[in-house]
C-alpha cells in the first residue's frame, strides 16, 4: 500500500517508441507505393511495477538498450508513459544519460541559472548556492564561455554540480560521470553518499557493479524492457544477488586467453564478498 513516505510509485508502466522511417513527402509516397510501413514501434518498457521509499538508494542495472535511461526519463517527467502511471513526491533532480540539458549557445553561468530555475530553485536560492556550485564543478574561467566550447567532461561536471546542489528529494544519476576523470568521480560519489545519508532517494544507473554495490541498498535489473529482478521482492534478494543475476561474472567459455585477466578484474571490482 502507498504509505506516507513513499517516494516513487511506478505502476504498470509501459513505454512504446514510434520510430519514423519516412519523413519527407517523397519518402512517404515511395513507402506507400511499395507497401512499406510508414513507421514501426518499439516497446522499450513493458509493465514495470515498483515502489521506492523515501531515503532508499536504488541501483538500476541492465545491458545496453534495456531501458534504463527510458525509465529514468519517465521518473524525471520528461517523458510520459504510454500506459500506467508514474508518481513522485517532492523535488526531482539529476542527470539523464551523458550530457546535461544545456543550451549550447549560452554561457555556463546562464545555463546554471536556467537549469537551477527549471529544477525549481528560486533566484535567491541560486545566488546563495552559486559559489558552491561553481567550486564543485571546478570549471575555472570557462564559466562565461558558451557551453558549446566545453569539453564533454566539463559540461558533465557543471550539470552534476547543479543537480546535486538543488536539495532534491529524489536524485537520479544515469551514467552521468562516464566522461568525468577519476578525481571528479570520487568527489561525486562522495557527494552522493552524503545526500544518501541525508535521506534523499537515489536512483543510480551504472554498469560498475562494485560502485552500485556500495552506493545502493536495493537493485533493479532490467532485461529488454522487463523488470526481471527486484532485490526487495525476490526471496533472499540482495544487491549482490542482482549483480549475479546479470551474469556479469559468468564464465567466458570461448575466450580462454582473456579469461584470467578479465575475471580477475571483475572479481576485484565486485569486491571480496562475492
Amino acid at each position: 500500500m502507498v504509505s506516507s513516505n513513499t517516494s516513487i510509485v511506478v505502476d504498470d508502466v509501459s513505454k512504446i517508441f514510434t520510430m519514423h522511417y519516412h519523413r519527407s513527402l517523397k519518402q512517404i509516397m515511395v513507402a506507400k507505393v511499395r507497401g512499406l510501413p510508414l513507421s514501426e514501434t518499439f516497446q522499450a518498457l513493458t509493465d514495470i511495477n515498483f515502489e521506492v521509499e523515501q531515503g532508499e538508494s536504488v541501483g538500476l542495472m541492465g545491458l545496453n538498450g534495456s531501458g534504463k535511461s527510458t525509465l529514468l526519463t519517465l521518473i524525471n517527467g520528461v517523458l510520459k508513459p504510454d500506459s500506467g502511471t508514474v508518481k513522485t513526491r517532492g523535488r526531482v533532480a539529476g542527470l539523464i544519460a551523458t550530457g546535461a540539458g544545456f543550451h549550447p549557445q549560452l554561457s555556463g553561468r546562464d545555463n546554471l541559472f536556467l537549469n537551477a530555475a527549471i529544477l525549481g530553485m528560486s533566484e535567491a536560492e541560486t545566488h546563495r548556492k552559486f559559489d558552491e556550485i561553481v567550486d564543485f564543478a571546478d570549471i575555472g574561467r570557462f564559466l562565461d564561455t558558451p557551453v558549446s566550447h566545453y569539453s564533454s567532461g566539463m559540461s558533465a561536471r557543471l550539470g552534476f554540480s547543479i543537480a546535486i546542489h538543488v536539495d532534491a528529494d529524489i536524485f537520479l544519476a544515469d551514467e552521468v560521470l562516464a566522461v568525468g576523470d577519476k578525481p571528479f568521480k570520487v568527489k561525486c560519489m562522495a557527494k552522493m553518499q552524503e545526500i544518501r545519508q541525508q535521506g534523499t532517494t537515489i536512483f543510480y544507473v551504472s554498469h560498475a557493479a562494485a560502485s552500485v554495490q556500495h552506493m545502493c541498498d536495493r537493485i533493479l535489473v532490467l532485461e529488454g524492457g522487463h523488470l526481471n529482478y527486484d532485490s526487495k521482492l525476490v526471496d533472499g534478494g540482495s544487491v549482490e544477488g542482482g549483480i549475479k543475476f546479470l551474469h556479469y561474472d559468468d564464465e567466458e567459455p570461448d575466450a580462454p586467453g582473456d579469461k584470467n585477466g578479465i575475471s580477475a578484474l571483475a572479481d576485484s571490482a565486485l569486491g571480496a564478498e562475492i
Partner: protein
Amino acid sequence: MSGGAPTSREERREARASHPMAKETIEESRDGRKRNAAKRARKMARKKADSMPVVEALEAPQQTRVVEGELVTPAPAGGVVGLFKAPYLLRLLVRREIAKMYSASVLGLLWSYIQPGLRFGVYYLVFGVLLDVQRSLPNFAIHLFCGIVFTHFFSEVFNGGTRSIWENRTLVKKMAMPRETFPIAHVIVGYYHIFPQILLLFICCLLSGFRTDLTGVVALFLGTAIISVFGMAVALLFSAVNVYYRDFQNVTGTITQMLHFMVPMMYGWDRIAGFQPTHPVLVQLYLANPVCDSVILLQRFFWTGVNMADGDLGHNAELPPHMLERGGITLACCLVFLVLCQWAFSRLEHKFPERL
C-alpha cells in the same frame, strides 16, 4: 586508384571468406547472433565494472527526510496560465533571448529597429511618394507606422515562436519544464521590441498635434489585446507543429511578408471599402484577419487622433464602421483559438522529447 579499390576490396573479402577459421566464426555468429550480442554487451559491461570508483557509505546513520506534499505525476504542470503564476523561469528565458540578439553582432539589438525602420522607409517612398498615396491619405506616415508596429510584433512572435521549441531541443529533451515557456517567451520579446516603437509613434503624434477620445483609448487596448492573444495562440500551435514537420519554419517568413499587404497600412481602408458592393465576402474575410483588426484599432487611436487634431475628417480618414464591436468579437474568437491551441499543444508535447 579509385577504379582499383572495389576489386581489391572484393579480393580481400574473398580471401577472408576462404580462410577456414574466419568462415567458422561467421557461421557461428549467424547461429547465435542474439546470444553473441548479449555476450558482447556483458563483456563490455564487465570491462566497465570498475570504471566507477568505490566510495564507502558514510559512518553516520541515515537521517530520515520528511517530504511534504503529495505523490504527483512528475511531468511539469503546463499551461500558459501556470507560466504567469511563476514568472521567474519565463523572465530568465526572455532575458536570454534578448541577450542572444546582442551577442555576436556589432549593432546588436539595433537590428530589430533597423529592420522595421528600413521597411518603413521603403514603403513610404514607394507607396507614399512614388504611388502618391499620401495625397489622398492625410498623415500617411502615421498610418503606415501603426501598421509596421503591429505587423513587426506579429512576425517576431510568429517566426521566433515557431522555431522556439526546436531551437531549445537540448533543454526540452533533458529537463522537465513547462514547454509553453519557449513560445510564450517570444511574445514577451515581441513586446520588448515594439514598446520603444510605440513610444516613438506617440512622440511623433504629440509633436504633430494629437487629440483622443474614449473610443480611441478603448481601441488602443482592444487592438493590443487582440494581437497579443492571437500571437500567443499562433506561437503555441506552430512551435508544436514545427517539431513534427520542420517545414513550417520555412513558411513563416513568406506568410509574414504577405501579411504586410493584408492590412491597411500602405493603402487606405477606402481602397478595400470600394470592393464592398462587388465582393462583400472578400471584404469580410479581409476584416476577419485579427492582425488587420488590431492594426485598424491602433490606427483608430494614433492616426485618427492626429487627424482629429488637424480637424480634417474627410471620407478618406475613415476606418471601417463598428470597429469596437468587431474588435470585441475578434478578441473573443482569439481567446477561443488560444484555448484550442493550448489544448493542441498539450496533446502534442508528450512526444516532443522523442521527436526532437
